[in-house]
């Protein structure tokens, strides 16, 4: 365990502050804004690729979108504003993180809903098992007879 921890601490000290950027793309001068922009890029879909974010893709379009994201952020837009701008142009499809709205309420709630349903299903079934079945009339008679019988 200690080995893991010490290796881990080593890595931690080595890797802090190492942020990278493509050379053909100028990072923003403000590191806070650049970090914001890169965080956002991870959540924007590369529209011509299969399931890749624009951060991961070399496609022309991804490059253009990266430039747009940086430009907007540099101009002082918040990440939410940039998202709204991209959705305006390309629709919700461009967001890898589906927006919370009427059509996605169920999606976002699904982990909680399903866990509840399955938990109820499982616990309820075993509760039933735990409670012994009520005695039938004949059995009650029998029990009564047994109890009343003096030894």
């Amino acid at each position: 365990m200690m080995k893991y921890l010490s290796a881990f601490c080593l890595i931690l000290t080595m890797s802090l502050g190492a942020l990278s950027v493509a050379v053909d793309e100028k990072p923003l001068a403000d590191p806070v804004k650049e970090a914001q922009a890169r965080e956002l890029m991870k959540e924007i879909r590369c529209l011509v690729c299969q399931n890749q974010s624009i951060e991961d893709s070399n496609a022309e379009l991804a490059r253009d979108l990266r430039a747009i994201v940086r430009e907007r952020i540099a101009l002082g837009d918040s990440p939410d504003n940039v998202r709204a701008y991209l959705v305006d142009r390309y629709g919700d499809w461009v967001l890898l993180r589906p927006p919370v709205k009427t059509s996605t309420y169920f999606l976002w709630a699904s982990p909680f809903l399903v866990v509840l349903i399955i938990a109820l299903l499982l616990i309820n079934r075993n509760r039933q098992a735990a409670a012994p079945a009520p005695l039938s009339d004949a059995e009650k008679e029998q029990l009564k007879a047994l109890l009343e019988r003096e030894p």
Partner: protein
Amino acid sequence: MAGELGHFALILALLFALAGAVAPHIGAVRNDATLMAFADRSVLAQFLMAVTAFAALTYAFVTSDFSVVNVATNSHTLKPMLYKISGVWGNHEGSLLFWVLILTLFGALVSWRGRKLPLRFRSRVLAVQSLLVLGFLMFILFTSNPFLRLDPAPLEGNGLNPLLQDPGLAFHPPMLYLGYVGLSVAFSFAVAALIEGEVTPLWARWVRPWALLAWVFLTGGIALGSWWAYYELGWGGWWFWDPVENASFMPWLAAAALLHSAIVVEKRDALKSWTILLAIVAFSLSLLGTFLVRSGVITSVHAFATDPARGIFILAFLAVVVGGSLVLYAWRAPKLAPSGLFGIVSRESALVVNNIFLSTFAAVVLVGTLYPLFVEAFGAGQITVGPPFFEYAAAVLMSPLIVALGLGPVLAWKRGNISRAMQVAFPALVVAAVAGLVLVWQNAGGVVMTAFGLGLAVWLITSVFLEIAARIKLFRAPAKALTGLGKITRAQWGMSLAHAGVGVILLGITISEAFTSEELVVMAPGDTVDVAGYSFTFEGVAPVAGPNFTAVRGFFTVREGERVITSLTPEDRVYSNPAMNTTEAAIHPLFSGDLYAVVGEATGAGRWSVRLYFKPMISALWLGALMMMIGGILSLSDRRLRVGSPTGKKTAAQAGEGASA
């Protein structure tokens, strides 16, 4: 000639499967031992026919017989032999034939290993298995025949998708298929039990090794696939929550739940109908996974071919198998009353918690994968459900699971004592909290999830060690601890190893996600770039010619200080048939992490765009997966788990109970 032989063998197999799916049931109803015993002969015959057909197709691929359409479309004379062979299952028709081969193999194995099963039950199981074979063979013969001829035969084939020409991918599908199809055995056992109307602890003991075997293969298949993505796709990513990845992950989750719920059936005669349902669902998810990628609904490298006739057949087949088994379940399952009791705080309850979260996760992954289709179908626009959603679901559902996972094994069976369990597990909680806090303190802000993930991983790994320590009474009677170590059964070692594997994977995920260093730069020969303390010097490029590709190979020397660590030679390949560009990353694993280099396009004046990474602790992912597989195999090799082994139920129960006391 070989083609016709294979075709003929498939038709024979279909007839055997038809007879094998019907006759044993008649035999079981009429109590006719001969008819029931026919099931054994039928599955053996199906297997031999499937082997013949598969051998025939392999022969056609190896000899590049382009008069077979399938070979002409998917092979090429210049392809290396390994990929000629892996090309057999690297296409739609061939992969289905491979499915049937494994399906019949498992049928034959059940017949062989299950000699001790009651004849009536075994014949029912094999009949269900034969029914599945029948469905697949009909699908192959009517819509996806790999033996169709082409006249005139072309001189050269079209070749295989170069992305698939890779050693990792040559073995990824067979592993995955062994897992998918292995779950068919659990399914057949479940359906047979429903027909017979009885589930006993013995049933769980029969079914568990098969579920475990399937799970081990699924683990291996998924790990290979993710390793492939890591070094072949060139982004350094290893999991994308792609629909196809999800399709393999869902059965894995269900199989993991099944393994655990079967324990409760075996020990306590409870959770019976739930376990049956899981067995049905796990295989249904396998089928969905197999077909989802082929239906054309979802496109990816895995979608070999799309054709509406196939889509209809697939839907019908899914409806029959999934719908049919669920209807049977709804009808028969209420009869399966649980008889065993267990307290709220007990190992059984911990296993119930395990089942709740694993199966919920499987369901949520399914919801997330199909959600865009539903939203579109209801006219609510197009949305993408990407990694952020699945990561959210994983965080919500897996964190409580991992907490329970640390606690479960130290709880006693039947009636546990939470405070006694906490005595064992408490130090793990402290270690985890400290590890998490250290991290937050070192790098305040923005790393809560990292701290949390690390804390969970440490909690899990520590509690595995503490559980072993408690079992051998390391702290109470250290002198005798060594003898205690010898008494631990293989199944228990397997459990500990697999659980620790989960922790190791979590550690790898958390650290590599949070601390990867990446440089995307343009370099000229002689340039040096520093990545996470390692200096990468670009020495230049050279052209390379492979059997069916040409490539540019980049040369990098990596130094730490003055010391040369390694040289990396990534390639940028251009395949000729079909024409396609692929990247071959160069990776050098160190103990602390992977050095990773990818060479991209020339940008003029002798300069090349390259991506260089240092990915800390990423190997922990594959190490953890390996630990889980070995854990599974250890557990499988435990004598008392073997089907038909003469060990009495009493000793088995004692072994389990004694260990946790």
